[in-house]
């Protein structure tokens, strides 16, 4: 498919390169299915197409195309990494979003066009490395090439007088030894009574190149397989609660195509405590998070409970899954009672943080137990402050002055119709608002340990103080300020992943790096040492080298060998033949 270099017949074998590589021989004009060519049959066209696809030019174009194709995914939010951003984009740009969507602009990296580019690139890559690998195996067994008749035109050409009392054979044998020590493969040749040694080294350069390109294929396959057999799930756990690693227990779960749910190891993960540390000294960074640590307990059927911890940057690896701490926040403990004082709702409700000081929003849904379904949209301020406008804000992320406000809605929660609804949102259409907004009734406002009546005698709502020694609840507005540090529970949101091929991706990545290093920095070079006979009968040692690929150190290597073998060049001896004939 690709013509091999002319030096093959001399024994030495160059690495096989696509025809348009700079080291490949120039193709004869009119190569390809041009005018000058006889008609190509179907097979001819196929071969021509394949050669185009596996050419260096195509590789460059596909690489550049890949770079360009990757750009839009950074301009437009992606469903995979930023689903909320996509929703927002549809809201903000109702006209353009569907158009973009039809071009898969919100799923760039799984889109047909992006996939097409990289798949073509990898087909090209396969077409490139298979013949090269085959060729390289042969090359590694081939003998170094015959010594050229004239070394004078080659790189670093230099001569040294044959040292007194050393005969040609000894000199060549000595050179052979030195070259072998320099990890050259050597071969003795003799032409017209001039003994010589031909040497070649740096096969690792091509090996590295092949390893590099093959490992890239490896990564692609490993990533694909890992995506197919792995899963990623999310689960929010409030302090004191736990979760069992089963399908139904996840808040959201994204399995790979071939994932088998029965392969989930059913261990239990309990969140004992979530520690959050905030900056208190540095005036420029008050309230900046310093550390989050989730203290957890892992239990399975087989053994005793095991304590562990999960931190940002320090996942917990257990039972074939990786547990990550990706978020945290407050889960105010809310109790709703009916007019008779019966508890109809009692739960710690995770509120989603909205800003750095953890102003948080949450929703309470009371579907049963009251005359009508009840919904509450709440704001939680860990350290409440009143802005000039009268609006509330949180000024510090820790619990200094926690305040919860609730707007109450009554009516159909929309959860009986069967369509799944998020626990974090409330659809107020079809519901009557009872407090806040334009109702004329103030929003409910509670501190931990306070309770108040729901409007219209519908019952009571209590914001439970979860501190260990909390006093009994008192009516809203009457709680004395105290240390609230433990009054509200925190939740941790865990990501739980399983990726069976992750380790393979790492292995291939290391191979990529190793292959790259050797293929860019190992010089592949040939070196010759010959005992030449001058016209006057005197004998000199000739040295020369030839680079195969980038090799800035070649000339120095030749002269170093010459110096080592026969001593430094005499002052008058020109090391560089400036009058070398041009090629």
């Amino acid at each position: 498919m690709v013509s091999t270099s002319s030096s093959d017949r001399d024994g030495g074998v160059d690495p096989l390169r696509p025809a348009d590589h700079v080291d490949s021989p120039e193709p004869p004009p009119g190569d390809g299915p041009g005018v000058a060519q006889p008609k190509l049959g179907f097979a001819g066209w196929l071969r021509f197409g394949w050669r185009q696809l596996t050419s260096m030019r195509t590789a460059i174009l596909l690489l550049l195309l890949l770079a360009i194709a990757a750009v839009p995914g950074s301009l437009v939010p992606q469903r995979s990494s930023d689903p909320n951003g996509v929703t927002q984009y549809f809201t903000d740009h109702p006209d353009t979003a569907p158009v973009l969507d039809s071009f898969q602009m919100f799923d760039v990296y799984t889109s047909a066009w992006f996939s097409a580019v990289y798949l073509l690139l990898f087909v090209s890559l396969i077409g490139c490395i298979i013949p090269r690998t085959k060729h390289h195996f042969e090359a590694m067994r081939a003998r170094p090439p015959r010594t050229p008749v004239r070394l004078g035109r080659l790189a670093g050409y230099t001569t040294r007088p044959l040292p007194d009392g050393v005969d040609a054979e000894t000199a060549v044998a000595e050179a052979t030894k030195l070259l072998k020590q320099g990890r050259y493969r050597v071969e003795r040749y003799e032409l017209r009574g001039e003994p010589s040694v031909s040497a070649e080294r740096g096969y690792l350069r091509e090996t590295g190149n092949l390893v590099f390109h093959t490992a890239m294929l490896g990564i692609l396959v490993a990533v694909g397989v890992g995506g197919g057999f792995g899963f990623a799930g999310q689960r929010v756990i409030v302090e004191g609660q736990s979760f069992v690693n089963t399908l139904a227990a996840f808040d959201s779960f994204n399995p790979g195509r071939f994932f088998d749910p029965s392969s989930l190891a059913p261990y239990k993960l309990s969140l004992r405590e979530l520690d959050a540390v905030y900056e208190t000294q540095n005036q420029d960074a008050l309230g900046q998070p310093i550390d989050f640590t989730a203290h957890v307990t892992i239990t399975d059927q087989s053994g005793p409970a095991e304590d562990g911890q999960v931190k940002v940057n320090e996942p917990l690896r257990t039972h074939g899954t990786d547990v990550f701490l990706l978020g945290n926040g407050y889960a105010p403990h809310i109790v709703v009672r009916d007019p008779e004082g019966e508890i109809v709702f009692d739960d710690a409700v995770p509120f989603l943080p909205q800003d750095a000081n953890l102003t948080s929003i949450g929703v309470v849904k009371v579907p049963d137990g009251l005359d009508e379904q009840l919904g509450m949209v709440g704001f939680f301020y860990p350290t409440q402050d009143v802005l000039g406008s009268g609006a509330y804000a949180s000024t510090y992320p820790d619990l200094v002055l926690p305040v919860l406000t609730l707007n109450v809605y009554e009516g159909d929660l929309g959860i009986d119709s069967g369509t799944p609804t998020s626990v974090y949102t409330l659809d107020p259409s079809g519901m009557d608002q009872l407090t806040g907004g334009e109702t004329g009734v103030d929003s409910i406002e509670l501190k931990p340990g306070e309770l108040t009546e729901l409007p219209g005698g519908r019952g009571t709502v209590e914001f439970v103080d979860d501190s260990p020694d909390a006093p009994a609840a008192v009516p809203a507005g009457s709680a004395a300020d105290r240390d609230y540090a433990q009054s509200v529970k925190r939740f941790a949101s865990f990501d739980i992943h399983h990726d069976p091929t992750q380790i393979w991706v790492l292995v291939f990545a290391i191979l990529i790096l190793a292959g790259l290093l050797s293929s860019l920095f190992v010089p592949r070079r040939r070196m010759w040492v010959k005992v030449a006979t001058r016209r006057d009968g005197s004998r000199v040692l000739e040295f020369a080298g030839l680079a195969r690929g980038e090799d800035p150190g070649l000339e120095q290597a030749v002269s170093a060998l010459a110096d080592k073998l026969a001593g430094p060049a005499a002052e008058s001896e020109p090391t560089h033949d400036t009058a070398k004939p041009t090629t």
Partner: protein
Amino acid sequence: MPSLDEISVLSVYSAMAVYAIAFIAFSIDLAKRGAAAAKAADELRLAHDGDELPAAERERVGVLQAAATAKTAASAAGTGGTGAGEASGRASRWRSATADGASVAYGRSPALRVGVAMTVLAWLLHLTATLLRGFAAGRVPWANMYEFALTGTLIITTVFLVVLVVAKHDLRFLGTFVTGLVLVLLGVATVNFYVSVVPLPPALQSAWLVIHVFVATTSVGFFALSFALSVVQLMQSRRESLVASAKAVKKSFLATLPDSTTLENLAYRVTIVGFILWTFTLMAGSIWAEAAWGRYWGWDTKEVWTFIIWVVYAGYIHARATRGWRGSRSAWLAIIGFSTVLFNFTVVNLFFKGLHAYSGL
């Protein structure tokens, strides 16, 4: 008693002042190079007019013409299986013209010496500033835009100075570019990016911050040099083709610089070092992302641009090895590559939404 950070800022300003002096000195040197080239050309013309060519001058004619044909030779070479071998043979022939393959010999002007000396001095101040910032923060000084810029520019200068020491070719002429770039970036950083010392958010508390970000920044240092060399390469090769077509050529400083093939080889060597470091950056970033965000690759905006940069430079390396792409086309890819690097550092950091929200602004 000023705080460590205040001394650091003071030190940055001093470094900038000294960089500015270095920049001026390097610019004067470039102007002198132009003058030297013009003078050499005038002597040559005189010699021609007198029709009597002293041996030395004759040689210079040869050299000039040789430089002119460098490009043609470059495209003619590569035939047969010995392209790269010929390339180095060619390089050695040019080296016999002047040590650097330049067509007009030019030593080191006093301005150039001043420029280098001032760069070293500025580098010391810059290093002091960066270290003090680190001590003030009690951690590595690269955790927000201001610090990225401070350390990044320090590394650009460091790479430049190291290359001056180790490279066989004299690359002092890049001083104008390097000091100019560092000055501009430092200026933008102190004016627009400055933030006072704040503790690390939990996501940044990792050994990978030390490794990943440092290697990325070093890589940028190499890419910056590769960019500069590629730009000069393009200018040089344009000049060479003008000389080849015997058009009147403005006598510019370029005549005192290495020929375009030498520049290209240098650019390539600098770029592959940058490329390897970038490959490592990408991988270390993935390992870190796995620990911090639960997945090693998620096409976050910053990841996307890291990938784009990597692919563009992979394209450059292929271009260098492809007939018809070597030379100017590959140089353009190196230039595009560095543009994406700058874009990634500025626009992506500041305006794109993503998990890497560490600009501190």
